[in-house]
């Protein structure tokens, strides 16, 4: 083995290295981020042209902010996102605690049901929800959007919370109970503080999933309500404008920030045991 080391240079020696893989990775990154970066760049272009750079300008952003339709859509999106993520996070906390550790009959079935929104193709969920609301007589508007969003936000909130809970050893609960805390107080004083990064991470993820949703929202919104993705889609139908670039870049920025924060928060205090 030592003779091997002396006669071959380090690069060739690395048995794990494959030529071209590094290039492919960079190509992949460019592919993933290219369109996003391009659209962001053009959102700052003073003039409408693709070919000519007119100078840095926030005009399109101003226009987007002033647009009443966009404003209404943004507010609706925010209301729905905050409500749906709050509701689904609470439900997910309860469910994650119930599913913790112990095997009980039907545990796998429960997990399937909770994951169902992730399994069913979104278009099918969308039309099924529409048919359901119409049949039951629920009016299509903010309410129906909120209901539909609450459903698919649950698994997204559940996964980070459940994962965090798995890392919390059972002896913390036991110690709290041993020291005269009843079930509820053991939760508020010990379990919840320890699982909080997971809760926060789940909440943020649910929030952004709700904010970004298009397909399901498109079908259950009805004529009255509009969310940001819906408004953008409507604008795109009539032709790509720089205003769309601006709104898109904004929304992208928000999304990326939230997702990154959610990830970082989830990794906070990663080790909960000595």
């Amino acid at each position, binding site marked *: 083995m030592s003779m091997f080391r002396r006669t071959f240079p380090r690069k060739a020696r690395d048995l794990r290295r494959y030529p071209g893989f590094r290039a492919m990775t960079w190509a992949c990154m460019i592919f993933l981020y290219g369109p996003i970066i391009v659209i962001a760049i053009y959102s700052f272009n003073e003039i409408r042209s693709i070919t000519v750079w007119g100078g840095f300008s926030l005009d399109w952003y101003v226009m987007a902010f002033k647009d009443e339709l966009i404003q209404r859509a943004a507010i609706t999106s925010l209301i729905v996102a905050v409500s749906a993520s709050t509701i689904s996070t609470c439900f997910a906390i309860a469910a994650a605690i119930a599913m913790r550790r112990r095997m009980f009959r039907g545990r796998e079935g429960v997990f399937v049901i909770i994951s169902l929104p992730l399994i069913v*193709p979104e278009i099918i969920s969308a039309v099924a929800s529409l048919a359901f609301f119409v049949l039951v007589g629920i009016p299509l508007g903010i309410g129906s959007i909120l209901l539909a969003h609450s459903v698919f936000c649950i698994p997204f909130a559940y996964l980070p919370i459940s994962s965090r809970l798995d890392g919390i050893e059972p002896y913390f609960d036991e110690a709290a109970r041993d020291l005269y805390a009843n079930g509820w107080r053991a939760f508020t004083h010990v379990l919840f503080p320890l699982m909080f990064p997971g809760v926060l991470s789940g909440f943020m993820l649910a929030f952004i999933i709700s904010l970004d949703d298009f397909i399901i929202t498109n079908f259950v919104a009805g004529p009255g309500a509009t969310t940001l993705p819906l408004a953008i889609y409507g604008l795109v139908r009539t032709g790509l404008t720089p205003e769309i670039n601006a709104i898109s870049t904004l929304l992208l920025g928000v999304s990326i920030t939230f997702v990154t924060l959610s990830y970082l928060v989830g990794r906070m205090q990663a080790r909960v045991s000595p």
Partner: protein
Amino acid sequence: MADVVQPALPESTKRRERAQRLLRATLLMPSLLTITAFLVAPLFIILVYSFLTPGTYGGVIWEFTPNAYIQFLFERDIFDDSLVFSTAYLGIYGRSFIQAVVSTSICFLIGFPTAYFIATRPVRQKNMWVLLVTVPYWVNLLIRTIAMLFLIRDEGPLNHTLIWLGAISDPIHIAYTYYGVGIGLVYSYLPFMILPIYATIERFDFRLVEAARDLYADRWTTMWRIILPLCRPGIVAGSLLVFIPSLGSFIAPDLLGGGKNLMIGNLIALQFQGSRNWPFGSAAAMILMTVVLVTLVFYARQQSRAKVRLH
């Protein structure tokens, strides 16, 4: 020592265990009820609808008929009312299937080297790379598709740059073709090919590679015979995570297909919007759902320990 007959539990234990079960059920109720009421029930409604008659202005009339499914395969001749085998809708399903397979393959060709590269980086770099790969996925699919459309359309920056560079004289027509849809699908779901493969390679024991090389195998033979087969679980998981959403995709074919390259998702959507044939849309949805379920069951059986991570 195992004991077949167990003594009766004391009352206090029975009471406590019952209370525990009640608590667990209460904690699970909100989530389960919500999902059952607003997803499971609607799915059953769609199932029923697929056997009903379409109403004049949309909706359904409660008359049972298998027409929706028949319409899928056959057309009624307007003259003699006989059924003629039609490939219109089958074609859509077929093309969707092919699109999904092709984009899955491309995702694999791009995704596997990427996943491998990332997994073999030093630890601190790894997390950064993983974050970079993950973030685009979670970020608004609609907007990412719009961005892709913006980029590749005839008047878009890509074509302009290529023309400016002199590489081509006329714009490459990608947008609004099925190539565009394909690119859109790959763009949408690539991260989900990368992540499961990354997870598998991360756990891979590279001493096996050393053993193979020691036995005179070259790089590519090692890849083909050792690494790929042992990474099969991750590859299969990633492929599923790309294939299934691609099959039911709506946004990519809608924005990038230009109304001509309909996939299953568009077909279904159409029935509930313009065409107003809810039973037919339901039938189409049910067929898609069946394909998805069959694929999943097949996958689950393949795993002895069914750990299904999905979109």
